[in-house]
Every structure is written in C-alpha cells, then in structure tokens.
C-alpha cells in the first residue's frame, strides 16, 4: 500500500512536470525571469552605487554661501578643497528642500567681529537629513570646516606659545570591526528578499494551476474518481512544484554566483564559493516547501484561479517584512530568530552572504522549524483537499 502510494505520488508529479514543461513559454518565464533579473539587479545596483559614491566624493562640490564676503579666508580654504562657491539663495531652507543644493553655508554677520576677538566664529550649515543624497556633500563640507577650524586654532595656540597638541585632550581612533564580506553585505540587504521571494512564490503559477486551474478546467473530477487517495494526489502535485521550485532556485543561485564575479567595484569581491552556494540552496529548501504547501492550501480553498491569485500581492509582501523590521530595528542574533519564518531565512542568508559561521544549533532550529511549518501547512492543505467542493467546478 505504502509503495503503491509513493509510486502514485511520483506518477502524478511526473505528469505535472511533463504537462508544465510542454508549456514552454510559462516555463521560460518561470525559470529564466528570476535568474536573468538577478544579475541585472546586482550588476545594475552595484554600478549605480559605485558611480554615485565616486562622483559625489571626487567631483567639484557646488556650495552656495551666504555672506561669503564676511570670511574671505574661509572661502579661499573651501575653494582649495575642490569646493566651488556659488551664489547664495534667498532662503536656504527653501533651497535645500527643493534640492537646489544639498548643503547651504551661511556665514553669520558677527563672524568677523568674533574672529578678531578669537572667539568661535559662527557659521551655519543648512541641509535635509531625510535626503540620502545630501549625506556625502554634508560630510565633505563639515570635514573641510573642521579642518579649517583646527588648523587656525592650532596656529593661534602657537602664537600664544602653546603646543597645538594641548588643544586635543583625547585622541580618538576608529576601528571598523566589519569583515570585508560584511561591509559589502550592507550593499546586499535586498538580496535575501529576492532569494526568499523567488523560492517562496517562484513556482506559484504551477501550484495554482495544478489545483485551482485543474478544478476550473474540470480535470480534477476524473482524477479524484481513481482509487488514488486525495492526499496522495495533492502530495504528487506538491512534489512537482517543489522540484520545479528547486530547479528555479538552483538557477538563481548559479546566476547569483556568476553575477558577483562580473559585478563592478566592491561587489566583485563577494565570493560565492560552491560551499556557500550549496548552503544557500539548503537554506531555501524549507522556503520552497512552505511556499508550495501554502499556495496549495490557498488553491484548494479558493473557488477559482482568480481568487487564488488575489492572494499573491500579500504573499509577495510577506518576505520583505523582516527586511523592514531589521532596517528599522536591527536585532541581535538570537536563536529564536531562526524559528520565525521569513526572519529566519533572512538571518541565515545574511549570515551566508556576510561570510559568518552558522552554528549547528542554528542550522538545527532553522531546519526543524522550516520543515515543521511546511508539514503543518501540508496537513491543513490535505484537509482542504478532502472537501467535497474540491472536485466540482461551477
């Protein structure tokens, strides 16, 4: 009986795969869109980030200055640091908000007087912290101003016979503990989302088709009239979708590996070794099962393909939730996180991409919870498959 059941599962899975692969266009879209989009995404964003940072750091920065005539020396110093002084806008806040300039420098009317008295002379930088684009220009101007301030301060001290070092009570040194992989990993926060998304709903078209679609085409009724148990039929369909999902995810991981080798700049150094690639696949395995069983459950419960497809937008949103949460509130690595769907995948993938070690305990919890959830969804889907209305369309 058991061997017969397994044989039937395989018979059904094989038929579904043959049926699917004869629909060339769907297969091409399903299998190639992901792997093609992935390199495009990596190469494209890599090049964009790289390009942006380089131009912002190296190009001449245009800085509108209000009251430039009050501080000719400071202005000359700024100019010597690859900053071009431009005409001042009337309202600096307006100018910044409308993004006419990333930063506006205003030299206070009291500047010259305070300068002569050797008191801190006030200048003001106007910027919009919510604009990502303003960060590098702001840092550049701030750095030059600080440099000017310390240089002049040191000179003043020397005039008064003080060591310029007396002005530095504390010497701050910075050590970045990020591994080289992790620094690059920051560029890659979007990658786990893509990988999770493709494994989660990559074979959605197939899954919805083999249950809700078959029902709509009325081919489920003759199938259910055979001696094969409904759970067996469902399992065969789930197996087919999982195999297809696995193939699609394998292609994506391969593309992922190749595109990093071709990517420009710092991304090029992300090395996806064969071991890492295999681990990526292993991490995505439970996700494929969860996605397939969840979609089977939805398809078995839905009255039509259209109804089943309506869930897609919500499902597409699910994998990005942990990415958002982590962006706003970065979590310390804790074991429970490896039990939460989507968050767990996110953490595992990040660790792999960042080149960190995943402990046996973390693997254990991850696999147990991932496949556990898959099994649970399978059981619920099997219940829905036994509903009377399943075999009947219209």
């Amino acid at each position, binding site marked *: 009986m058991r061997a017969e059941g397994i044989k039937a599962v395989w018979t059904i899975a094989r038929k579904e795969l043959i049926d699917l692969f004869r629909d060339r266009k769907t297969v091409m879209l399903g299998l190639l869109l992901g792997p093609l989009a992935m390199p495009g995404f990596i190469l494209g964003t890599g090049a964009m980030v790289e390009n942006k940072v380089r131009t912002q750091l190296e190009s001449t920065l245009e800085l509108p200055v209000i009251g430039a005539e009050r501080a000719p020396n400071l202005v000359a110093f700024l100019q010597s640091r690859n900053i071009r002084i431009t005409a001042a806008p009337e309202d600096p806040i307006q100018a910044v908000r409308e993004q006419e300039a990333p930063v506006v420098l205003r030299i206070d009317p009291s500047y010259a007087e305070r300068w002569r008295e050797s008191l801190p002379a006030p200048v003001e930088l106007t910027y919009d912290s919510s604009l990502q684009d303003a960060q590098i220009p702001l840092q550049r101007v701030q750095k030059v101003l600080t440099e000017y301030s310390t240089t002049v301060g040191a000179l003043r001290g020397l005039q008064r016979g003080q060591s310029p070092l007396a002005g530095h009570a504390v010497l701050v040194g910075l050590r970045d503990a990020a591994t080289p992989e992790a620094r690059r990993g920051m560029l890659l926060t979007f990658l786990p989302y893509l990988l999770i998304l493709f494994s989660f709903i990559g074979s959605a078209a197939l899954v919805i088709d083999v249950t809700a679609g*078959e029902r709509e085409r009325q081919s489920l009724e003759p199938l259910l009239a055979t001696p094969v148990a409904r759970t067996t039929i469902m399992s065969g369909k789930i197996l087919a979708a999982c195999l297809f999902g696995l193939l699609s995810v394998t292609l994506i991981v391969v593309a992922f590996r190749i595109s990093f080798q071709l990517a420009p700049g710092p991304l090029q150094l992300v090395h996806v070794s064969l071991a890492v690639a295999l681990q990526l696949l292993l991490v995505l395995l439970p996700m494929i099962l969860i996605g397939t069983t969840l979609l089977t459950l939805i398809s078995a419960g839905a009255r039509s393909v259209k109804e089943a497809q309506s869930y897609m937008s919500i499902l597409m949103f699910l994998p990005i939730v942990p990415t958002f949460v982590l962006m706003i509130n970065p979590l310390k690595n804790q074991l429970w996180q490896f039990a939460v769907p989507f968050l767990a995948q996110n953490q595992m993938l990040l660790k792999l991409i960042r080149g960190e070690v995943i402990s046996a305990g973390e693997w254990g919890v991850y696999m147990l919870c991932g496949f556990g959830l898959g099994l649970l969804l399978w059981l619920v889907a099997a219940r829905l498959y036994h509903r009377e209305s399943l075999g009947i369309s219209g």
Partner: protein
Amino acid sequence: MIQIDNLHKSFRSRTGTVEAVRGVSFSARDGEILGLLGPNGAGKTTTLRMLYTLMAPDRGYIEVDGLDVQEQPTAARRQLGVLPDARGIYKRLTARENIAYFGRLQGLDENTIDARIAALADTLAMGDFLDRRAEGFSQGQRTKTAIARALVHNPRNVILDEPTNGLDVMTTRRLRSFLRGLRDEGHCIVFSSHIMQEVAALCDRIVVIARGEVQASGSPDELRALTGLDDLEDTFVQLAGLEENAA
C-alpha cells in the same frame, strides 16, 4: 453490481437549501446496461458523483460489488471506471499519455497499459489521433479519449455520465456497440442521458429520474406499457412529469 438505496443529498445555496437528490434507489446488475434518464438538473450527475465517492450522501447507502462506498471508498473506486460529466482531458498530453496516466494511477504495469491502449484505441477507432496532443481535439476525440481513460483498467462497473454528448452519429453507433460488447462480457454499465431515444436504443433497463426522485423504472417496453404511449419522447415527458413545466 451497483446497489443504491434511498440516497439523499442537498446543497446550500444563497437562496436556500436545494434538495438535489431525494430518496433515489436503484440497482444495476452485472451483464446489464442501466440507463439513468432525466431532464437537466434532475439529480443524475449528483447521484453518480455520490456513487464514485466525489460527494458523500446526506443519507442512504451505496454498494459496489458488495463494498460499502462510504466505508471503503478506495476499494470501491477500484471497481469503477468513471466518465464524469466533465471530461477533463489534459490538453498538453497526447491521447495515449492521457490514458496511460490513468492506467498508472490504477496501478497497472506498463505492458498492461500498452496492451489496453492498443485494444481500446482499436475498438474506439482512435488510431488517427492517439499520439496527438489533445489540444484542438474535437468533442468526439475528447470523449473517446476520456472513455478509454475511464476503462483502461478494465473495470467491472462502468459509469458514463452523458457519454454521447456532442458525438456524431457514427461515433455514437460505435460507442453503443462497444458498450454492448462490454455488457456481453459481463460488465455492469450505468449510463446517464437526457435523451430518451439514446437510452432506449442501448439500455436493458431505464430508471427515470426527475426532481431528485425516481419516477419510474423498467425496460423501454415496460415504460411504454406503463404510460400507454407509443412515442418514446411522450413516454419520457409524461414519466418525468414535464408537461406542467412545458405548458
């Protein structure tokens, strides 16, 4: 051998509960073709669906070759070959692949499947389209494929829901002689239709169903004698109690 006893089934709809089947009883013997005759919506398809365990009856008892279908649905389905109202041919598979798929699901080995397909394709005259994909099949080709698929495991009991729907005269004739052949081999055949002539031409006994109930049963001649009418259609209209609707 199929035994159906006091079958009830109702569905809830937006407008209230619909009693689709109300106490249907009949039996179909081996070596006999039984026709279920009734107008559209009479409860034929629902009755058959309960017979092949797609639905569970609210009340009543069904037995296939001595097996209670509710107690042993899998074993009961094994005794049945079913052509449902919805043919559901896979259009990206060839006719042969469609049939072989069901053969595998019935647990047949590949040699048996090949032999059965050859035999069925011969009787149903499927040679010219057997290895073509079902996409673009005519209604007749689809029905033939579905019939072959339902009979691939040579079941003792054959359930055919409106098998001649959309078939041309020659195909219908061939199907009739094929079913008579099965009957002569001792199979039990249940055949549903809404066309009196169709049923009369083929069936040994007829069960007339209307409004979810059995209205009459017997051989075509017995039914004619019952109503005292010569015309088959008139007989059917009177037995099914359709006059008041037609008026």
